[in-house]
């Protein structure tokens, strides 16, 4: 027989293309040559294993696709959205995760152990630090070496060492990140921020830890996490799903409340933090805290002062509110496609103020 024929028959069998007579012919050939069995079995095994679907990536692509349909003005009836502050004058703002400006810096630091050069078994310890930063006005999605996913909000920084995942999975966050952590019991995932540490086994949650903000917020969507406040290392706070932990950022608290520095150590923990329930929007059961990953800036009962800080990062602008009373006005709403000017004009309808724009700076007066 011709060897070509054997391979044609075998591939047809694997691809479900073989006729009954062809299958019979192949079976007879194999029967005559029992020593082929092993290799054929291996080839069949190889054939059957298909690539797993990367569902997370696919769902992201689907989200982008729907956004694109919207941009192209193709009507694709959408589920009732939260009422947007602006109902008119939308401009297309294309925004792709993939295109979001990301700077990945990999710094290489070599620590050579003195006197160990002759010892072959001791390799120099290489320490590589990966740093991912997002500029104000842009966001990014990062996949860590273990498959955990982090969405980084504007003006944030995430760093991890090259040895990430060898014994622990440790990252440092400054800014806001939405974490979807792969479950690995033996290798806890630890996030360090300036005021808290979070230990995770495998879960989904959002951390907002901008150094300039008054609070560090941790919102747990699924699973369970353990938080320690750096100032109170002995107290562990276990969060349950749908809980949000708000911790005061010490530097700012001290300066605002005029608490003498030496006293902060003995502050009762309750003044440092609070645990609240996450509020679900009745209409579409979304949580405001994580809407940014869908490119929505959602604010619920938020002071204008706090909102302005978020808008600075979101739009890459500088906002100055000259009136202190204005800063305390509380607002509700959502921006998704609005430009900064459209957003400002919309807010003006709810709180009366005037603003002027000078380049990247916006000054708000009564």
């Amino acid at each position: 027989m011709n060897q070509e024929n054997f391979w044609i028959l075998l591939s047809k069998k694997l691809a479900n293309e073989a006729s009954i007579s062809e299958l019979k012919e192949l079976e007879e050939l194999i029967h005559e040559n029992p020593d082929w069995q092993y290799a054929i079995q291996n080839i069949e095994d190889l054939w059957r294993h298909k690539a797993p679907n990367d569902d997370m990536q696919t769902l992201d692509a689907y989200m982008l696709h729907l956004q694109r349909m919207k941009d192209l003005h193709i009507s694709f009836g959408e589920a009732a959205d939260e009422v947007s502050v602006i109902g008119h004058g939308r401009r297309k703002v294309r925004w792709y995760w993939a295109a979001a400006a990301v700077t990945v810096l990999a710094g290489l630091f070599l620590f050579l152990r003195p006197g160990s050069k002759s010892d072959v078994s001791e390799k120099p310890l290489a320490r590589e630090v990966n740093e991912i930063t997002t500029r104000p006005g842009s966001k990014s999605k990062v996949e860590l070496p273990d498959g955990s996913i982090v969405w980084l909000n504007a003006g944030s920084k995430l760093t991890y060492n090259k040895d990430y995942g060898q014994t622990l999975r440790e990252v440092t966050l400054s800014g806001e990140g939405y974490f979807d952590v792969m479950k690995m019991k033996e290798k806890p995932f630890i996030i360090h921020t300036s005021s808290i540490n979070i230990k995770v086994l495998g879960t989904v949650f959002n951390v907002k830890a901008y150094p300039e903000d008054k609070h560090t917020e941790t919102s747990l969507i699924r699973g369970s996490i353990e938080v320690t406040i750096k100032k109170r290392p002995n107290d562990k706070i276990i969060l349950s799903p749908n809980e949000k932990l708000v911790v005061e950022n010490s530097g700012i608290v001290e300066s605002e409340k005029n608490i003498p520095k030496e006293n902060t150590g003995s502050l009762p923990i309750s003044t440092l933090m609070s645990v609240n329930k996450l509020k679900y929007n009745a209409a579409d059961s979304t949580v405001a805290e994580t809407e940014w990953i869908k490119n929505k800036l959602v604010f619920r009962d938020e002071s204008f002062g706090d909102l302005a800080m978020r808008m600075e990062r979101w739009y890459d602008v500088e906002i100055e509110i000259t009136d202190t009373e204005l800063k305390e006005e509380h607002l509700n709403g959502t921006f998704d496609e609005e430009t900064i000017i459209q957003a400002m004009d919309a807010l003006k309808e709810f709180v009366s103020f005037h603003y002027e724009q000078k380049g990247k700076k916006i000054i708000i007066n009564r």
Partner: protein
Amino acid sequence: MGRFSAMGEDEQIKRLLKLISLNDDQSAYKQLFVLLYHRLKQFAYSILKSNEEAEELVSDVFVRIWDKRAQLISVESPRLYLYTITKNLAFTRISRQRKQINITSEEWFVQLDSIYFDPEQLVITEEILRQIRKAVNDLPPRCKLIFKLIKEDGLKYKEVAELLQLSIKTVEAQMAIALRRIGKCMHFEIKSTPFQVSSKKS
């Protein structure tokens, strides 16, 4: 979510297309996207050779599906239909870029690792697996594309032949070449007579 066997999947796609066509069913639309996104993207990549463009192209394909949903009900061979739209849109895009209409199938480019072998599930050694990956990767572009479309994407010989404008005999022969090279990595070679076979166990 598991994969479906070739037959079942064809029927599943037909059912989804029907739901989209008749009921403007958005959840069926999403299911179809999730089911095929990866494969269509890889297929688009083999023409466009750019990840970003391939992603956008699949989005274009699904825009087209939604636009023309009224006609979906009459699609006979759903997978061939979807791959053909992908191919045509990709060729249009590339000819616009290069001002060149013909692209020979030798230019097909199949992404490394888009053909999948799961080492944990197999009894063969890591070394042999590495050789198999290399052998598959070194296949001529058209041969590799045919192998990928049939093994990973579950297309029928007939569908591949029509999609790539080849005869079924060519598809058969290309598949045989790919498998023979894999067999060779396992030291499995068939000489011209069936009585001389070397099959080393490793």
